[in-house]
């Protein structure tokens, strides 16, 4: 399949919450986002490779779920201000069938029966040396709603139901990985997960991740 996605501006990102790009430059994309959003970012990058087996010593999705399917989550949920944008890049020249799956929370963030769960249930986020309270949709940190969810790190401390994707209508979008593909995700809006890693990709699936966190958390977006 021929893919000619190009990153010209953030219009598609704003509309859909994500965009795939082929043969683009991550540096150029970051620069474009920064200009259009009038923001500077702290950029943290790391390599993502599947972990062999679940371990107990560190509470990350990777050590907890190993090659299995990850639960839907947002990245950096343990930070008071999570990364605004997450950019994943396949630096390899081969394609991966193990997909990254996205869910747009705009589909259910206005779902009235779930208002209490998303906007009023209080969670304690444990982060080792810094714990804090938050709602899943937090409007007070930045002025713009931040959707935060990581079932491993967030413990419900108020009464009522906890968040469960099964209770809301949603349309998952599968992103298979083409060579040199880049995926840009609005991490304050989109949930993502990784499918269970297929056998052929357990040793060679490798993505580079860039987390972009606004330096001025009160900048307008």
């Amino acid at each position, binding site marked *: 399949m021929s893919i000619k996605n190009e990153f010209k501006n953030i219009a598609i990102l704003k509309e859909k919450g994500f965009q795939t790009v082929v043969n683009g430059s991550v540096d150029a994309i970051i620069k474009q986002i920064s200009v259009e959003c009038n923001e500077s970012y702290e950029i943290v990058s790391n390599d993502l490779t599947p972990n062999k087996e679940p371990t107990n010593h560190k509470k990350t999705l990777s050590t907890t779920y190993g090659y299995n399917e990850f639960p839907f989550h947002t990245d950096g949920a343990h930070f*008071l201000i999570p990364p605004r944008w997450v950019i994943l890049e396949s630096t390899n020249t081969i394609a991966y069938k193990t997909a990254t799956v996205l869910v747009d929370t705009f589909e259910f963030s206005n779902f*009235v029966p779930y*208002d*209490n769960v998303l*906007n*009023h249930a*209080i969670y304690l986020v444990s982060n080792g040396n*810094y714990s*804090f*309270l*938050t*709602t899943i949709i*937090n*409007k*007070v*940190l930045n*002025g713009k709603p931040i959707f935060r969810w990581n079932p491993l790190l967030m413990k419900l*401390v*108020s*009464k009522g139901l906890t968040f469960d994707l099964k209770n809301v209508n949603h349309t998952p979008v599968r992103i298979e990985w083409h060579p040199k593909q880049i995926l840009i995700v609005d991490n304050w809006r989109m949930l993502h997960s990784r499918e269970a890693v297929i056998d052929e990709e357990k040793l060679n699936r490798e993505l580079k991740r860039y987390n972009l966190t606004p330096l001025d958390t009160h900048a307008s977006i």
Partner: protein
Amino acid sequence: MQAFDYNNLFQKSKLYIQRALDEDREGDLFPFWISLSLELLARSTLSKISPALLADTNSNDHLLYAFGFETTSKPRSIQTSEVFQRLLKINISFTQDDCKIANSIVEQRNTELHSAIKGFIDYPASMWIADFYRICKILLKSQMLTLEDLLGKEESQAAEMMIAVEDNTTKKQVIDKINAYKKVFFDLPIDQQKNKIVTAQVEIRRNYSKAKIVKCPACGSDALLSGDLFSISAAKLDVGNIRQEKRYIPTKFGCVVCGLTLTSYQQIKITDFAGQFTLEEYLDPLDYHGIDPENHVDIDYLVQQKIEEMTGFGEYQDE
């Protein structure tokens, strides 16, 4: 500065209000959780402006902590009563009346926690719950939030209804009062009405620098509006004079002519004087700049000159 962090204070306030709303509305724990929530919401309002506003000023360590520095002592914040006092001084329509109500709620909680006396007996939630929601609304507005953000949809609708009922009750009482004073005044013979207006001018002139002159909604005469001072502008030079503006939230209205008085912002906001008002003050340049004239002129010489001017004794008489 986690202890003074805005997000944590707000979310904790929200958590405690949920605990209150889960309780029996006539039970002991409903007002107890409400009082905790109110304190945290008040603190979050200050923290939203700057966490430093919460720092205990007895030690620099607490201020440094508020700015994110590591300190050796445990961070300590100001007393709740001081929190309410500081809220009075920032421009958010939080009045002395609100301050009194908020302090009373917190005092009942302290009575419950720190004494053998049961709190919230003499001052049950039914007496102040509408005021509590109204105060929350003021504090939330300053955080660019609404009651719904704190209470959720259903509870906020109920709270808004309680505020509206309270407002409507106050509105009816104020309108009835105005009409009653109007009737009494205009039933007086014309000469008595005129006499009262003239006499009142003396009182108004005596107080005009401390209050704003407005038209009485009952008799239409000049009347006085005063309030809670919440800010003072920087001094400005105005055609050779030093002028300063004092900004007030109106909390007292009095008409010397017909006798009508309104004694709270809630009552005054029913009239046309609801907005904040400003009084101008002209400052003595000597006081403002801290000038002592004796440092600059020879007072004995000036006195001698004045005496000579007044008595006519000058050099001529010495001839």
